[in-house]
């Protein structure tokens, strides 16, 4: 049976395909997949999903391997083997506030998609804050007065800048990572080990 790889849709997908092609794997069916969410190549079965769902598919053994951002792994703590970093998908986690706005002295309200990471960040600082969960466009929250600041991933900082926000603190650095189902890695060792080794060689070259 072909190894099944769950791949995070979007930016990580594009970067992974470049990486995958550099390892001389056939990426043609993956580039020309249209809107299909499941694609077979000669060697692999691929499923395309949101990052958090990639971890779920791998945890439940539907996919053997997964390619996902480390931010998702830290936030959701799936029960998977978190094997090694990949040479793409680099970003940081940052606390950002509106440019020129005073950081209030009262209890602060922070908006974030990453509520667990936010909670842990402020817990380590010894500060109690209210956390508002948002699903996206988190930069809007301070502008519209929903929150005093945001905790979000930052790649280049352009989105923050264009929305009048400034980084107050950066506290985690991530990249994409290769994860594996705990049973698959053992039971399908013969088919997964060559794939994992080729990824590791690719990482070493980069």
């Amino acid at each position, binding site marked *: 049976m072909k190894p099944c790889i769950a791949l995070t849709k979007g930016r990580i997908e594009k970067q992974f395909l470049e990486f995958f092609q550099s390892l001389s794997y056939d990426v043609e069916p993956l580039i020309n997949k249209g809107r299909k969410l499941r694609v077979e190549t000669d060697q692999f079965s691929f499923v395309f999903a949101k990052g958090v769902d990639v971890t779920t598919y791998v945890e439940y*053994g539907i996919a053997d391997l997964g390619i996902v951002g480390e931010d998702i792994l830290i936030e959701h703590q799936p029960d*998977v*083997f*978190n*094997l*090694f*970093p990949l040479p793409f998908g680099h970003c940081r986690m940052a606390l950002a506030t509106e440019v020129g706005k005073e950081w209030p002295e009262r209890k602060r309200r922070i908006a974030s998609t990453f509520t667990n990471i936010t909670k842990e960040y402020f817990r380590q600082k010894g500060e109690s804050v209210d956390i508002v969960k948002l699903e996206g466009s988190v930069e809007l929250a301070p502008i519209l007065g929903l929150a005093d600041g945001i905790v979000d991933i930052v790649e280049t900082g352009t989105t923050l800048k264009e929305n009048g926000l400034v980084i107050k603190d950066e506290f985690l650095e991530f990249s994409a990572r290769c994860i*594996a*189902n705990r*049973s*698959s*890695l*053992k*039971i399908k*060792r013969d088919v997964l080990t060559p794939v994992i080794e080729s990824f590791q060689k690719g990482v070493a070259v980069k």
Partner: protein
Amino acid sequence: MFLPAGSIDETGQTVDARSQAYEVFRNVTTQRNYKQISTPVVEYANTFTNEIAGMKLQNMLKWFNREGEIEVLRPDWTTAIARALVNQHPSQLKWSYQGSVFRSDKDGIESRQAGIEIVHTPVFLGEGECLLTAIHYLKELNISSYLIELGHTAIFDELTFPLQLTSEEVDQLREAMHDKRRDVVYSIVINKGSKQIADELTSLVDAFGSFDIIEKYEDKWKNNRKLLEIIQHIKQLALLLKDSGVDEVSVDLGRVKNLPYYCGTMFRGYIKGNGATCFSGGRYDKLYEQFDESISAVGLAFDVDVLAENIDMNETNQKICIVASEETHAYAESMRQSYPNVIVDIRYNLPEVHQFDKVLEIKKENNDYKVVEK
């Protein structure tokens, strides 16, 4: 009326398969001279959360009793059995149990287990008997495609001992090993100033496989008496399994304990078809230290829910319906003796034909009973 999320009423094949798993387990363990033990479903939380048992209270179903003590629904059998066995006569060496455990961090809250505990027994005999009981049981359930994995807690302890890690660092490193997170393993150890141990532990992350891995590490550790003893012990167990007909024996030398009381060999069984873990266990002599006892103890628990999903429950018994009446019911009941290996149901009305292989109707004529096949 509704049930809490994760709870469910079950009927039919699921319940039948689970009952069969329990029944076969009882037969196998009886044949192998295990004595059954049962512990209460309600226990004090401290039995499981103390420093030695080390389970997390947050994952237990708990409440305060009238005295303000925290009570829980049994989250783990091994710890409960250890508490109970301290009061048992040491001449009984082999114990078996079956029943539910309750954990809020698991799907479904309630999961069913059947397990064995072997105490006061030489190390290899106890561990071998655990594993041989496991393969005997799986064979009786007609589960043939599985993988047994062996590991050992002392490999990590031995390799990290020179680093003089704090308990927090040990936890971090153990977690990174558990997740096979090689970059973090390397980073933690290199920060402690030992490239040699960093390289050793990082390569251990990938040290899982079959006899090839055992032989590789037997050679690699030939000058380290403690590690050589461990790998040779694992090899001996693997050979015992191989000689007993197990096709696939695997080792994971980078495996670390996930509960503080494990102290030696660790076992795990995977169903090959779907990767589900069907049993796990290992040596836990340390668990008895909380009772000031020095005891050799090893055991494993089967996940009965996983086994039940993998049992082939094709019904082979013939099903017969006897249609009787109040007047002919006693005669119908007496007819059961004629069908010792057949499922016999007595009804007063004709059933739908597809429900039974044969339908017999009893008629009483002139004080005589006449059986007519429908």
